[in-house]
């Protein structure tokens, strides 16, 4: 099957490959897999106080389309607010990369990875806020 030029471009020269510290409270990690083929994808975001994604990294073990989808996803979400990034649809990724129907699931994986990274970050932030709200009450006792 022939890959589109954009897929090859991202595959040969992927953007933002790497890892962020998953223990860092400002980092959200999304880990997703495709049970049908055994591909795995990790996408991480670093979010600032205003909820803007300052950095994004990914690592994907999978086919060219899966690598291109996650590479493109990290490029798109950098600089976006998490609310906006969470609205990115797999169809937009598939369209940008000209993915053939059999590779649509790769873009689904990338969308899932973004959502799951944002969800992880939100949970961390909520846990921190709960802790911060608790702290003065404990101190007042």
């Amino acid at each position, binding site marked *: 099957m022939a890959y589109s030029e954009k897929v090859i471009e991202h595959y040969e020269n992927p953007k933002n490959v790497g890892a962020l510290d998953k223990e860092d409270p400002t980092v959200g990690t999304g880990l*997703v*897999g495709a*049970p*049908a083929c055994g591909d795995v994808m*990790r996408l991480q975001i670093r979010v600032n106080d205003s909820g803007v994604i300052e950095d994004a990294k990914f690592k994907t*073990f999978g086919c060219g389309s899966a690598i291109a989808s996650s590479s493109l996803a990290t490029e798109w979400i950098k600089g976006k607010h998490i609310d906006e990034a969470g609205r990115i649809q797999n169809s937009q990724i598939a369209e940008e990369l000209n993915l053939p129907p059999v590779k649509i699931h790769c873009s689904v994986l990338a969308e899932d990875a973004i959502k799951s990274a944002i969800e992880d970050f939100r949970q961390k932030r909520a846990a921190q806020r709960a802790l911060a709200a608790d702290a003065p009450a404990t101190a007042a006792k």
Partner: protein
Amino acid sequence: MLDPFATLGLEPAFDLDLAEAERRHRDLSRALHPDRHSQSTPADRRAALGKAIEVNEAWRTLKDPIRRGEALLRRLGVEVEEGREPKPDPAFLMHVMEQREALAQAGRERNEARLEALVGEMRAEQARAIAALSLELGRAAANGGASVHAAALLSRLGELRYCQRFLDEATMLRDELF
């Protein structure tokens, strides 16, 4: 899709006797071979050829644990279709990711011993997933498919695919480097 167990005349079971299945495949293939049908009518020759293809496909399906599992799931009325699989267990996924990263590093370092060690670990993982799938399929068959835990069965099958993918990748890396 045709039932590969019926095609080879075998009892449907995950833990089937592979040697017996291979024997059936060989015997049937021999009987269906075009040389034995050179005197038959064109229609009969076509039928024999069609049947021979079916027999080959059945054997290919049954010798692969993943495809064998899928065939049994279909028999139990569970739909095996891409995009409908349950999400994998996060801890399992994390483990797969770590192993894939370790494998990639072993490749970069051209560390054959490390690669073989990782393959060994994944084979053990695969054996565990096969045993778990076998147990669940046995359970489902025992109660006549009355209460099929489709999600659990599909999860086990998914885990097997992650293991297989890792092992395929390791084989490619080994051929490339050593």
